[in-house]
Protein backbone atom coordinates (compact mmCIF):
# COMPACT_ATOMS: atom_id res chain seq x y z
CA UNK A 1 0.00 0.00 0.00
CA UNK A 2 1.61 3.34 -1.03
CA UNK A 3 1.51 6.58 0.99
CA UNK A 4 -1.16 8.14 -1.25
CA UNK A 5 -3.53 5.22 -0.69
CA UNK A 6 -2.98 5.36 3.08
CA UNK A 7 -3.68 9.08 3.14
CA UNK A 8 -6.78 8.57 1.01
CA UNK A 9 -8.03 5.83 3.33
CA UNK A 10 -7.35 7.88 6.44
CA UNK A 11 -9.08 10.92 4.93
CA UNK A 12 -12.13 8.87 4.00
CA UNK A 13 -12.47 7.42 7.50
CA UNK A 14 -11.83 10.79 9.11
CA UNK A 15 -14.36 12.51 6.83
CA UNK A 16 -17.00 9.92 7.58
CA UNK A 17 -16.47 10.18 11.33
CA UNK A 18 -16.60 14.02 11.26
CA UNK A 19 -19.56 13.96 8.86
CA UNK A 20 -21.53 11.64 11.16
CA UNK A 21 -20.61 13.67 14.22
CA UNK A 22 -21.55 16.95 12.53
CA UNK A 23 -24.79 15.61 11.17
CA UNK A 24 -25.95 14.55 14.60
CA UNK A 25 -24.29 17.29 16.67
CA UNK A 26 -27.08 19.89 16.62
CA UNK A 27 -29.75 17.37 17.57
CA UNK A 28 -27.68 15.82 20.30
CA UNK A 29 -26.69 19.17 21.79
CA UNK A 30 -30.25 20.33 22.38
CA UNK A 31 -33.16 18.49 23.89
CA UNK A 32 -36.57 19.25 22.44
CA UNK A 33 -39.10 19.94 25.20
CA UNK A 34 -42.09 20.14 22.83
CA UNK A 35 -43.61 16.81 24.02
CA UNK A 36 -43.65 18.05 27.63
CA UNK A 37 -45.26 21.32 26.55
CA UNK A 38 -47.97 19.42 24.65
CA UNK A 39 -48.72 17.29 27.70
CA UNK A 40 -49.03 20.36 29.92
CA UNK A 41 -51.29 22.15 27.41
CA UNK A 42 -53.44 19.01 27.07
CA UNK A 43 -53.91 18.99 30.83
CA UNK A 44 -54.79 22.73 30.78
CA UNK A 45 -51.63 23.58 32.79
CA UNK A 46 -50.85 26.62 30.67
CA UNK A 47 -48.85 28.56 33.26
CA UNK A 48 -46.60 25.59 33.91
CA UNK A 49 -46.12 25.22 30.16
CA UNK A 50 -45.16 28.90 29.93
CA UNK A 51 -42.68 28.57 32.79
CA UNK A 52 -41.07 25.56 31.16
CA UNK A 53 -40.96 27.30 27.76
CA UNK A 54 -39.13 30.36 29.10
CA UNK A 55 -37.78 32.80 26.50
CA UNK A 56 -35.16 30.76 24.71
CA UNK A 57 -36.43 29.08 21.53
CA UNK A 58 -33.39 26.78 21.41
CA UNK A 59 -35.15 24.51 23.95
CA UNK A 60 -37.07 23.22 20.91
CA UNK A 61 -33.89 22.35 19.04
CA UNK A 62 -31.90 24.34 16.49
CA UNK A 63 -34.40 24.23 13.64
CA UNK A 64 -37.68 24.49 15.54
CA UNK A 65 -37.73 28.10 16.70
CA UNK A 66 -40.98 28.75 14.85
CA UNK A 67 -42.68 25.91 16.73
CA UNK A 68 -41.44 27.38 20.01
CA UNK A 69 -43.07 30.75 19.31
CA UNK A 70 -46.27 29.12 18.03
CA UNK A 71 -46.60 26.94 21.14
CA UNK A 72 -45.71 29.82 23.43
CA UNK A 73 -48.22 32.15 21.77
CA UNK A 74 -50.98 29.56 22.02
CA UNK A 75 -50.19 28.55 25.63
CA UNK A 76 -50.30 32.21 26.68
CA UNK A 77 -53.51 32.75 24.67
CA UNK A 78 -55.15 29.80 26.44
CA UNK A 79 -53.91 31.09 29.80
CA UNK A 80 -55.62 34.41 29.05
CA UNK A 81 -52.28 36.24 29.02
CA UNK A 82 -52.85 38.52 26.08
CA UNK A 83 -49.62 40.53 26.10
CA UNK A 84 -47.16 37.59 26.14
CA UNK A 85 -49.32 35.77 23.62
CA UNK A 86 -49.33 38.73 21.23
CA UNK A 87 -45.56 39.13 21.66
CA UNK A 88 -44.87 35.44 21.00
CA UNK A 89 -47.08 35.34 17.90
CA UNK A 90 -45.41 38.53 16.63
CA UNK A 91 -42.07 36.72 16.94
CA UNK A 92 -43.57 33.85 14.95
CA UNK A 93 -44.72 36.31 12.26
CA UNK A 94 -41.23 37.81 12.00
CA UNK A 95 -39.74 34.36 11.75
CA UNK A 96 -42.20 33.37 9.01
CA UNK A 97 -41.02 36.36 6.98
CA UNK A 98 -37.35 35.57 7.60
CA UNK A 99 -37.88 31.91 6.72
CA UNK A 100 -39.03 32.85 3.22
CA UNK A 101 -35.32 32.92 2.42
CA UNK A 102 -34.12 29.34 2.36
CA UNK A 103 -30.62 28.49 3.46
CA UNK A 104 -28.67 26.62 0.79
CA UNK A 105 -26.61 24.85 3.45
CA UNK A 106 -29.77 23.70 5.22
CA UNK A 107 -31.32 22.59 1.92
CA UNK A 108 -28.18 20.56 1.25
CA UNK A 109 -28.49 19.03 4.71
CA UNK A 110 -32.02 17.88 3.92
CA UNK A 111 -30.51 15.85 1.06
CA UNK A 112 -27.50 14.63 3.01
CA UNK A 113 -29.24 13.87 6.32
CA UNK A 114 -33.03 14.37 6.39
CA UNK A 115 -35.76 17.05 6.27
CA UNK A 116 -35.49 17.86 9.99
CA UNK A 117 -32.12 19.52 9.31
CA UNK A 118 -33.96 22.49 7.81
CA UNK A 119 -35.72 25.24 9.81
CA UNK A 120 -39.37 24.36 10.37
CA UNK A 121 -41.59 26.57 8.21
CA UNK A 122 -45.04 25.29 9.14
CA UNK A 123 -47.83 24.41 6.75
CA UNK A 124 -50.43 26.65 5.12
CA UNK A 125 -52.90 26.17 7.97
CA UNK A 126 -50.46 27.05 10.75
CA UNK A 127 -49.41 30.15 8.78
CA UNK A 128 -52.98 31.51 9.00
CA UNK A 129 -53.84 30.20 12.48
CA UNK A 130 -51.25 32.56 14.01
CA UNK A 131 -53.45 35.45 12.93
CA UNK A 132 -56.66 33.70 13.98
CA UNK A 133 -55.35 33.39 17.55
CA UNK A 134 -53.90 36.89 17.47
CA UNK A 135 -57.24 38.30 16.31
CA UNK A 136 -58.99 36.44 19.12
CA UNK A 137 -56.37 37.75 21.58
CA UNK A 138 -57.28 41.31 20.65
CA UNK A 139 -61.01 40.58 20.43
CA UNK A 140 -60.94 39.05 23.93
CA UNK A 141 -59.28 42.24 25.16
CA UNK A 142 -61.99 44.31 23.41
CA UNK A 143 -59.42 45.87 21.06
CA UNK A 144 -61.20 45.43 17.72
CA UNK A 145 -58.97 47.92 15.92
CA UNK A 146 -55.93 45.71 16.44
CA UNK A 147 -58.03 42.58 15.83
CA UNK A 148 -58.75 44.02 12.39
CA UNK A 149 -55.01 44.34 11.74
CA UNK A 150 -54.92 40.56 12.09
CA UNK A 151 -58.00 40.22 9.87
CA UNK A 152 -56.17 42.17 7.14
CA UNK A 153 -53.12 39.95 7.56
CA UNK A 154 -55.31 36.82 7.32
CA UNK A 155 -56.88 38.14 4.15
CA UNK A 156 -53.46 38.86 2.62
CA UNK A 157 -52.14 35.42 3.55
CA UNK A 158 -55.23 33.62 2.28
CA UNK A 159 -54.76 35.37 -1.08
CA UNK A 160 -51.28 33.85 -1.29
CA UNK A 161 -52.34 30.34 -0.30
CA UNK A 162 -53.64 27.97 -2.91
CA UNK A 163 -57.44 27.65 -3.05
CA UNK A 164 -57.20 24.01 -1.92
CA UNK A 165 -55.81 24.85 1.50
CA UNK A 166 -58.02 27.79 2.49
CA UNK A 167 -59.32 27.83 6.04
CA UNK A 168 -62.95 29.06 5.92
CA UNK A 169 -62.91 29.97 9.60
CA UNK A 170 -60.25 32.63 8.94
CA UNK A 171 -62.69 34.41 6.59
CA UNK A 172 -65.57 33.79 9.00
CA UNK A 173 -63.66 35.36 11.90
CA UNK A 174 -62.50 38.22 9.71
CA UNK A 175 -66.12 38.95 8.74
CA UNK A 176 -67.21 38.76 12.35
CA UNK A 177 -64.51 41.24 13.41
CA UNK A 178 -65.48 43.67 10.66
CA UNK A 179 -69.11 43.39 11.71
CA UNK A 180 -68.43 44.36 15.33
CA UNK A 181 -65.73 46.92 14.53
CA UNK A 182 -67.90 49.98 14.09
CA UNK A 183 -65.78 50.93 11.06
CA UNK A 184 -67.44 52.66 8.10
CA UNK A 185 -69.00 50.05 5.76
CA UNK A 186 -68.52 47.38 8.44
CA UNK A 187 -71.47 45.29 7.29
CA UNK A 188 -70.41 45.39 3.66
CA UNK A 189 -66.86 44.35 4.54
CA UNK A 190 -68.21 41.64 6.83
CA UNK A 191 -70.50 40.33 4.08
CA UNK A 192 -67.58 40.00 1.66
CA UNK A 193 -65.63 37.82 4.10
CA UNK A 194 -68.70 35.83 5.13
CA UNK A 195 -69.37 35.02 1.48
CA UNK A 196 -65.77 33.92 0.97
CA UNK A 197 -66.10 31.65 4.04
CA UNK A 198 -69.42 30.22 2.83
CA UNK A 199 -67.85 29.44 -0.55
CA UNK A 200 -65.16 27.31 1.13
CA UNK A 201 -67.23 25.44 3.74
CA UNK A 202 -68.52 22.08 2.51
CA UNK A 203 -71.64 22.80 4.53
CA UNK A 204 -72.24 26.37 5.69
CA UNK A 205 -72.63 26.48 9.51
CA UNK A 206 -75.94 27.87 10.75
CA UNK A 207 -74.15 30.50 12.84
CA UNK A 208 -72.52 31.83 9.67
CA UNK A 209 -75.85 31.92 7.83
CA UNK A 210 -77.36 33.92 10.70
CA UNK A 211 -74.51 36.42 10.78
CA UNK A 212 -74.56 36.77 6.97
CA UNK A 213 -78.24 37.62 7.18
CA UNK A 214 -77.59 40.10 9.96
CA UNK A 215 -74.81 41.81 8.01
CA UNK A 216 -77.10 42.09 4.97
CA UNK A 217 -79.90 43.49 7.03
CA UNK A 218 -78.28 46.86 7.60
CA UNK A 219 -81.58 48.30 8.83
CA UNK A 220 -81.27 46.16 11.95
CA UNK A 221 -78.19 48.19 12.78
CA UNK A 222 -74.57 47.20 13.29
CA UNK A 223 -75.24 45.92 16.80
CA UNK A 224 -78.24 45.35 19.02
CA UNK A 225 -77.67 48.62 20.82
CA UNK A 226 -80.04 47.79 23.67
CA UNK A 227 -78.37 44.41 24.21
CA UNK A 228 -74.87 43.08 24.69
CA UNK A 229 -73.45 40.40 22.42
CA UNK A 230 -71.32 37.58 23.74
CA UNK A 231 -69.37 35.28 21.41
CA UNK A 232 -68.09 32.09 23.03
CA UNK A 233 -65.27 30.43 21.10
CA UNK A 234 -64.25 26.97 22.25
CA UNK A 235 -61.28 24.87 21.15
CA UNK A 236 -61.77 21.13 21.51
CA UNK A 237 -59.56 18.09 20.94
CA UNK A 238 -56.03 18.11 19.59
CA UNK A 239 -54.88 18.18 16.01
CA UNK A 240 -53.69 14.72 14.81
CA UNK A 241 -49.99 14.01 15.26
CA UNK A 242 -47.62 13.00 12.51
CA UNK A 243 -46.19 9.49 12.78
CA UNK A 244 -43.65 7.86 10.48
CA UNK A 245 -44.23 5.09 7.99
CA UNK A 246 -40.83 3.48 7.38
CA UNK A 247 -39.54 0.78 5.05
CA UNK A 248 -35.99 -0.62 5.31
CA UNK A 249 -34.48 -2.56 2.36
CA UNK A 250 -31.06 -3.63 1.03
CA UNK A 251 -29.46 -1.86 -1.91
CA UNK A 252 -26.63 -4.39 -2.31
CA UNK A 253 -24.65 -6.94 -0.29
CA UNK A 254 -23.31 -4.41 2.23
CA UNK A 255 -25.77 -1.49 2.00
CA UNK A 256 -29.06 -1.16 3.83
CA UNK A 257 -31.26 1.89 3.58
CA UNK A 258 -34.64 3.18 4.68
CA UNK A 259 -37.48 5.29 3.31
CA UNK A 260 -39.53 7.16 5.90
CA UNK A 261 -42.42 9.59 5.41
CA UNK A 262 -45.11 11.10 7.66
CA UNK A 263 -48.81 10.43 8.01
CA UNK A 264 -51.36 11.80 10.47
CA UNK A 265 -52.67 9.76 13.39
CA UNK A 266 -55.76 10.87 15.34
CA UNK A 267 -55.58 11.80 18.98
CA UNK A 268 -58.36 10.80 21.29
CA UNK A 269 -60.83 13.44 22.38
CA UNK A 270 -63.74 12.69 24.66
CA UNK A 271 -65.57 15.83 23.49
CA UNK A 272 -68.37 14.89 21.10
CA UNK A 273 -70.25 18.16 21.51
CA UNK A 274 -70.41 21.15 23.81
CA UNK A 275 -72.89 23.71 25.07
CA UNK A 276 -72.83 27.10 26.74
CA UNK A 277 -75.02 27.85 29.74
CA UNK A 278 -75.60 31.50 30.59
CA UNK A 279 -77.35 32.30 33.85
CA UNK A 280 -78.52 35.38 35.74
CA UNK A 281 -80.77 35.54 38.78
CA UNK A 282 -81.84 31.91 38.58
CA UNK A 283 -82.67 32.10 34.86
CA UNK A 284 -80.44 30.10 32.51
CA UNK A 285 -80.13 30.02 28.73
CA UNK A 286 -78.45 27.01 27.12
CA UNK A 287 -77.24 26.79 23.54
CA UNK A 288 -75.11 24.17 21.81
CA UNK A 289 -71.91 25.30 20.16
CA UNK A 290 -71.39 24.70 16.46
CA UNK A 291 -68.21 23.44 14.79
CA UNK A 292 -66.89 26.20 12.52
CA UNK A 293 -63.36 24.91 11.95
CA UNK A 294 -62.02 21.38 11.55
CA UNK A 295 -58.27 21.86 11.77
CA UNK A 296 -57.56 18.11 11.74
CA UNK A 297 -59.31 17.63 8.43
CA UNK A 298 -57.49 20.56 6.82
CA UNK A 299 -54.13 19.36 8.18
CA UNK A 300 -54.70 15.96 6.52
CA UNK A 301 -55.69 17.60 3.26
CA UNK A 302 -52.53 19.72 3.27
CA UNK A 303 -50.28 16.72 4.00
CA UNK A 304 -51.99 14.74 1.25
CA UNK A 305 -51.36 17.64 -1.13
CA UNK A 306 -47.66 17.66 -0.31
CA UNK A 307 -47.24 13.89 -0.01
CA UNK A 308 -46.04 13.26 -3.56
CA UNK A 309 -43.16 15.69 -3.13
CA UNK A 310 -42.31 14.32 0.35
CA UNK A 311 -42.30 10.67 -0.80
CA UNK A 312 -40.29 11.50 -3.93
CA UNK A 313 -37.63 13.25 -1.88
CA UNK A 314 -37.65 10.47 0.74
CA UNK A 315 -37.05 7.96 -2.07
CA UNK A 316 -34.34 9.87 -3.93
CA UNK A 317 -32.31 10.84 -0.84
CA UNK A 318 -31.28 7.25 0.12
CA UNK A 319 -30.19 6.66 -3.47
CA UNK A 320 -28.05 9.81 -3.39
CA UNK A 321 -26.50 8.73 -0.10
CA UNK A 322 -25.87 5.30 -1.62
CA UNK A 323 -24.24 6.94 -4.65
CA UNK A 324 -21.89 8.99 -2.46
CA UNK A 325 -21.06 5.97 -0.29
CA UNK A 326 -20.32 3.87 -3.38
CA UNK A 327 -18.11 6.63 -4.77
CA UNK A 328 -16.01 6.36 -1.61
CA UNK A 329 -16.26 2.59 -1.20
CA UNK A 330 -15.06 1.56 -4.69
CA UNK A 331 -11.64 3.29 -4.57
CA UNK A 332 -11.37 2.22 -0.91
CA UNK A 333 -11.81 -1.43 -1.92
CA UNK A 334 -9.04 -1.04 -4.52
CA UNK A 335 -6.64 0.71 -2.22
CA UNK A 336 -7.38 -0.64 1.28
CA UNK A 337 -8.91 -4.04 0.64
CA UNK A 338 -12.28 -5.76 1.04
CA UNK A 339 -12.43 -5.62 4.82
CA UNK A 340 -12.05 -1.84 4.95
CA UNK A 341 -14.62 -1.43 2.12
CA UNK A 342 -17.11 -3.76 3.80
CA UNK A 343 -16.66 -2.01 7.12
CA UNK A 344 -17.26 1.30 5.35
CA UNK A 345 -20.40 -0.18 3.74
CA UNK A 346 -21.71 -1.31 7.13
CA UNK A 347 -20.94 2.11 8.62
CA UNK A 348 -22.79 3.68 5.68
CA UNK A 349 -25.80 1.44 6.29
CA UNK A 350 -25.87 2.40 9.97
CA UNK A 351 -25.70 6.04 8.91
CA UNK A 352 -28.55 5.56 6.40
CA UNK A 353 -30.82 3.80 8.88
CA UNK A 354 -30.06 6.32 11.63
CA UNK A 355 -30.51 9.45 9.57
CA UNK A 356 -33.42 8.55 7.29
CA UNK A 357 -36.26 9.82 9.39
CA UNK A 358 -39.53 11.49 8.41
CA UNK A 359 -40.13 15.11 9.32
CA UNK A 360 -42.83 14.76 11.97
CA UNK A 361 -42.79 18.36 13.11
CA UNK A 362 -46.16 20.11 13.51
CA UNK A 363 -47.80 22.65 15.77
CA UNK A 364 -49.09 19.96 18.10
CA UNK A 365 -50.84 22.16 20.66
CA UNK A 366 -53.39 23.24 18.03
CA UNK A 367 -56.95 22.16 18.76
CA UNK A 368 -58.74 19.79 16.42
CA UNK A 369 -61.99 21.78 16.31
CA UNK A 370 -63.12 25.34 16.88
CA UNK A 371 -66.72 25.74 18.01
CA UNK A 372 -68.70 28.93 18.37
CA UNK A 373 -72.01 30.20 19.73
CA UNK A 374 -73.27 33.70 20.41
CA UNK A 375 -75.89 35.31 22.63
CA UNK A 376 -77.67 38.67 22.64
CA UNK A 377 -78.25 39.53 26.29
CA UNK A 378 -79.85 42.29 28.30
CA UNK A 379 -77.44 44.38 30.36
CA UNK A 380 -76.55 42.74 33.66
CA UNK A 381 -74.12 40.41 35.39
CA UNK A 382 -73.98 36.84 34.09
CA UNK A 383 -72.31 33.56 34.93
CA UNK A 384 -71.20 31.56 31.92
CA UNK A 385 -70.36 27.86 31.85
CA UNK A 386 -68.89 26.04 28.85
CA UNK A 387 -69.76 22.35 29.12
CA UNK A 388 -68.10 19.57 27.14
CA UNK A 389 -70.12 16.45 26.49
CA UNK A 390 -69.29 12.87 25.57
CA UNK A 391 -71.10 10.75 22.96
CA UNK A 392 -73.78 9.84 25.54
CA UNK A 393 -74.40 13.57 26.26
CA UNK A 394 -72.92 13.32 29.75
CA UNK A 395 -71.01 16.43 30.80
CA UNK A 396 -67.30 15.58 30.96
CA UNK A 397 -65.87 18.98 31.80
CA UNK A 398 -67.11 22.44 32.71
CA UNK A 399 -65.31 25.79 32.49
CA UNK A 400 -66.86 28.66 34.46
CA UNK A 401 -66.61 32.34 33.65
CA UNK A 402 -68.25 34.11 36.54
CA UNK A 403 -69.65 37.59 37.07
CA UNK A 404 -69.38 38.84 33.50
CA UNK A 405 -70.72 42.37 33.56
CA UNK A 406 -72.46 43.43 30.36
CA UNK A 407 -73.66 46.86 29.31
CA UNK A 408 -75.89 47.75 26.39
CA UNK A 409 -73.88 47.72 23.15
CA UNK A 410 -71.02 45.67 24.60
CA UNK A 411 -69.39 43.01 22.44
CA UNK A 412 -67.47 40.37 24.41
CA UNK A 413 -65.42 37.42 23.26
CA UNK A 414 -64.87 34.49 25.62
CA UNK A 415 -62.31 31.84 24.69
CA UNK A 416 -62.35 28.42 26.30
CA UNK A 417 -60.32 25.23 25.83
CA UNK A 418 -61.52 21.69 26.46
CA UNK A 419 -59.42 19.19 28.36
CA UNK A 420 -58.30 16.45 25.94
Amino acid at each position, binding site marked *: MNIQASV*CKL*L*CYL*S*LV*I*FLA*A*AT*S*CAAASKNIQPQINSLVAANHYDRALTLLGDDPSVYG*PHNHLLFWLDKGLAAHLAGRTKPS*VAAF*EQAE*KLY*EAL*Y*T*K*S*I*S*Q*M*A*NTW*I*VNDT*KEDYRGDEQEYVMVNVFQALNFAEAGNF*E*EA*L*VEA*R*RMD*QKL*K*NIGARYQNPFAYFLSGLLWQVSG*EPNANEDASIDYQKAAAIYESTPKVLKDLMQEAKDVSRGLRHLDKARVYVVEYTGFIPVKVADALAFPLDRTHLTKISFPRYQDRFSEVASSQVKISRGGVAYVQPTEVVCDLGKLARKILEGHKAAIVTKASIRPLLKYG*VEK*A*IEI*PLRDKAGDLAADLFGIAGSIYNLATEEADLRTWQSLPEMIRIVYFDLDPGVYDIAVEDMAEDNSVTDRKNFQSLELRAGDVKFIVSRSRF
Partner: protein
Amino acid sequence: MKTSMLVCVCMLFVLTGCATTKVTRTDVNAITDLSGQWNDTDARLTAEAMIADCLNGNWTNEFNKEKGRTPTVIVGKIKNRTYEHISSDIFTSVLERALTNSGKVTFVADKENREDIRDERADQQAGNTEPATISEKGHETGADFMLQGAIEAIKDEVKGKYAMFYQITLEMVDMKTNQKKWISQKEIKKIVEHPSVSM
Protein backbone atom coordinates in the same frame (compact mmCIF):
# COMPACT_ATOMS: atom_id res chain seq x y z
CA MET B 1 -8.98 12.27 -3.82
CA LYS B 2 -12.03 13.61 -5.69
CA THR B 3 -14.35 11.55 -3.51
CA SER B 4 -12.68 12.87 -0.38
CA MET B 5 -13.20 16.41 -1.63
CA LEU B 6 -16.88 15.62 -2.25
CA VAL B 7 -17.30 14.36 1.31
CA CYS B 8 -15.50 17.45 2.66
CA VAL B 9 -17.89 19.73 0.73
CA CYS B 10 -20.87 17.82 2.14
CA MET B 11 -19.35 18.18 5.60
CA LEU B 12 -19.00 21.95 5.17
CA PHE B 13 -22.70 22.23 4.30
CA VAL B 14 -23.60 20.36 7.48
CA LEU B 15 -21.29 22.46 9.64
CA THR B 16 -22.59 25.79 8.31
CA GLY B 17 -26.09 24.84 9.54
CA CYS B 18 -25.24 26.23 13.02
CA ALA B 19 -25.00 30.08 13.00
CA THR B 20 -24.48 32.81 15.63
CA THR B 21 -26.13 36.20 16.40
CA LYS B 22 -24.28 39.47 15.79
CA VAL B 23 -25.27 42.80 17.42
CA THR B 24 -24.11 46.21 16.17
CA ARG B 25 -24.98 49.49 17.86
CA THR B 26 -25.97 52.36 15.59
CA ASP B 27 -27.02 56.04 15.55
CA VAL B 28 -30.71 56.46 16.46
CA ASN B 29 -31.18 58.64 13.35
CA ALA B 30 -29.71 56.04 11.00
CA ILE B 31 -32.17 54.59 8.51
CA THR B 32 -32.57 50.93 9.44
CA ASP B 33 -34.98 48.98 7.27
CA LEU B 34 -34.67 45.37 8.33
CA SER B 35 -38.04 43.72 7.93
CA GLY B 36 -39.72 46.31 5.72
CA GLN B 37 -42.38 46.91 8.36
CA TRP B 38 -43.29 50.27 9.88
CA ASN B 39 -40.32 51.32 11.99
CA ASP B 40 -38.70 54.20 13.88
CA THR B 41 -37.56 55.84 10.63
CA ASP B 42 -41.14 55.97 9.32
CA ALA B 43 -42.36 57.44 12.61
CA ARG B 44 -39.60 60.05 12.57
CA LEU B 45 -40.17 61.03 8.92
CA THR B 46 -43.90 61.31 9.58
CA ALA B 47 -43.39 63.47 12.66
CA GLU B 48 -40.92 65.77 10.85
CA ALA B 49 -43.31 66.30 7.93
CA MET B 50 -46.27 66.89 10.21
CA ILE B 51 -44.38 69.35 12.47
CA ALA B 52 -43.34 71.50 9.51
CA ASP B 53 -46.85 71.41 8.09
CA CYS B 54 -48.48 72.20 11.43
CA LEU B 55 -46.17 75.11 12.26
CA ASN B 56 -46.60 76.61 8.78
CA GLY B 57 -50.40 76.30 8.96
CA ASN B 58 -52.57 79.30 9.71
CA TRP B 59 -54.88 77.73 12.28
CA THR B 60 -52.81 78.71 15.34
CA ASN B 61 -52.53 82.34 14.18
CA GLU B 62 -56.29 82.52 13.51
CA PHE B 63 -57.05 81.13 16.94
CA ASN B 64 -54.56 83.51 18.58
CA LYS B 65 -56.10 86.50 16.79
CA GLU B 66 -59.59 85.48 17.86
CA LYS B 67 -58.96 84.40 21.46
CA GLY B 68 -55.77 86.24 22.35
CA ARG B 69 -53.99 83.06 23.52
CA THR B 70 -52.40 79.93 22.18
CA PRO B 71 -54.74 77.03 21.41
CA THR B 72 -54.90 74.05 23.79
CA VAL B 73 -54.79 70.66 22.10
CA ILE B 74 -55.49 67.14 23.29
CA VAL B 75 -54.20 64.10 21.43
CA GLY B 76 -57.13 61.89 20.47
CA LYS B 77 -57.31 58.60 18.63
CA ILE B 78 -55.01 57.81 15.71
CA LYS B 79 -56.74 54.86 14.07
CA ASN B 80 -54.61 51.99 12.87
CA ARG B 81 -55.96 50.64 9.58
CA THR B 82 -52.82 48.80 8.52
CA TYR B 83 -51.40 45.29 8.46
CA GLU B 84 -49.18 45.98 11.45
CA HIS B 85 -49.60 46.77 15.12
CA ILE B 86 -48.32 50.34 14.91
CA SER B 87 -47.92 52.54 17.95
CA SER B 88 -48.82 56.07 16.88
CA ASP B 89 -47.51 57.37 20.24
CA ILE B 90 -43.99 57.61 18.82
CA PHE B 91 -44.80 60.24 16.21
CA THR B 92 -47.55 62.01 18.16
CA SER B 93 -45.17 62.49 21.12
CA VAL B 94 -42.49 63.93 18.80
CA LEU B 95 -45.14 66.19 17.29
CA GLU B 96 -46.39 67.19 20.75
CA ARG B 97 -42.89 68.08 21.92
CA ALA B 98 -42.03 70.13 18.82
CA LEU B 99 -45.31 72.07 18.88
CA THR B 100 -45.10 72.72 22.64
CA ASN B 101 -41.48 73.91 22.32
CA SER B 102 -42.46 76.22 19.43
CA GLY B 103 -44.71 78.11 21.87
CA LYS B 104 -47.58 78.08 19.37
CA VAL B 105 -49.63 75.32 20.99
CA THR B 106 -50.32 74.03 24.51
CA PHE B 107 -51.04 70.34 25.01
CA VAL B 108 -53.09 68.83 27.82
CA ALA B 109 -52.85 65.28 29.09
CA ASP B 110 -54.75 62.73 27.03
CA LYS B 111 -57.48 60.41 28.31
CA GLU B 112 -55.13 57.70 29.53
CA ASN B 113 -52.69 60.01 31.36
CA ARG B 114 -55.53 62.09 32.75
CA GLU B 115 -56.78 59.14 34.82
CA ASP B 116 -53.35 58.71 36.42
CA ILE B 117 -53.15 62.42 37.22
CA ARG B 118 -56.64 62.42 38.74
CA ASP B 119 -55.75 59.41 40.87
CA GLU B 120 -52.65 61.24 42.12
CA ARG B 121 -54.67 64.40 42.78
CA ALA B 122 -57.24 62.39 44.74
CA ASP B 123 -54.38 60.86 46.72
CA GLN B 124 -53.15 64.35 47.58
CA GLN B 125 -56.53 65.03 49.22
CA ALA B 126 -56.18 61.94 51.45
CA GLY B 127 -54.52 63.86 54.29
CA ASN B 128 -50.89 62.85 53.76
CA THR B 129 -49.81 65.87 51.70
CA GLU B 130 -48.71 69.29 52.98
CA PRO B 131 -51.90 71.41 52.46
CA ALA B 132 -50.06 74.28 50.76
CA THR B 133 -48.76 71.93 48.05
CA ILE B 134 -52.06 70.19 47.27
CA SER B 135 -53.37 70.60 43.70
CA GLU B 136 -57.08 71.19 44.00
CA LYS B 137 -59.48 69.53 41.64
CA GLY B 138 -61.65 71.52 39.25
CA HIS B 139 -58.83 73.45 37.56
CA GLU B 140 -58.07 71.29 34.54
CA THR B 141 -57.66 73.15 31.25
CA GLY B 142 -60.20 72.23 28.61
CA ALA B 143 -58.87 71.51 25.14
CA ASP B 144 -59.82 73.76 22.19
CA PHE B 145 -58.81 71.18 19.61
CA MET B 146 -58.44 67.44 19.35
CA LEU B 147 -55.72 65.91 17.22
CA GLN B 148 -57.16 62.88 15.44
CA GLY B 149 -56.11 60.80 12.50
CA ALA B 150 -55.50 57.46 10.90
CA ILE B 151 -52.70 55.39 9.46
CA GLU B 152 -53.86 53.40 6.46
CA ALA B 153 -51.99 50.92 4.34
CA ILE B 154 -52.29 49.09 1.06
CA LYS B 155 -50.20 45.97 0.52
CA ASP B 156 -49.55 44.52 -2.90
CA GLU B 157 -47.78 41.19 -2.71
CA VAL B 158 -46.37 38.53 -4.95
CA LYS B 159 -44.11 35.67 -3.89
CA GLY B 160 -41.12 37.08 -2.03
CA LYS B 161 -41.86 40.70 -2.89
CA TYR B 162 -44.36 43.29 -1.74
CA ALA B 163 -45.08 46.98 -2.02
CA MET B 164 -46.44 48.73 1.05
CA PHE B 165 -48.09 52.11 0.81
CA TYR B 166 -48.81 54.02 4.03
CA GLN B 167 -50.95 57.11 4.24
CA ILE B 168 -50.88 58.98 7.54
CA THR B 169 -53.57 61.61 8.01
CA LEU B 170 -53.75 63.97 10.99
CA GLU B 171 -56.55 66.43 11.61
CA MET B 172 -57.01 69.22 14.15
CA VAL B 173 -60.70 69.26 15.00
CA ASP B 174 -62.33 72.24 16.77
CA MET B 175 -63.91 70.84 19.96
CA LYS B 176 -66.84 73.29 19.83
CA THR B 177 -67.76 73.22 16.17
CA ASN B 178 -66.28 69.91 14.91
CA GLN B 179 -64.69 71.95 12.13
CA LYS B 180 -61.43 70.56 10.82
CA LYS B 181 -58.96 73.44 11.10
CA TRP B 182 -55.87 71.65 9.89
CA ILE B 183 -55.37 68.47 7.87
CA SER B 184 -52.02 67.01 6.98
CA GLN B 185 -51.04 63.90 5.08
CA LYS B 186 -47.79 62.04 4.75
CA GLU B 187 -47.32 59.15 2.36
CA ILE B 188 -44.64 56.49 2.53
CA LYS B 189 -44.05 53.75 -0.01
CA LYS B 190 -41.68 50.83 0.34
CA ILE B 191 -40.81 47.85 -1.78
CA VAL B 192 -39.62 44.84 0.18
CA GLU B 193 -37.92 41.89 -1.48
CA HIS B 194 -36.85 38.68 0.20
CA PRO B 195 -34.19 36.62 -1.54
CA SER B 196 -35.40 33.06 -2.05
CA VAL B 197 -32.04 31.56 -1.02
CA SER B 198 -29.00 32.42 1.06
CA MET B 199 -25.94 30.54 2.27
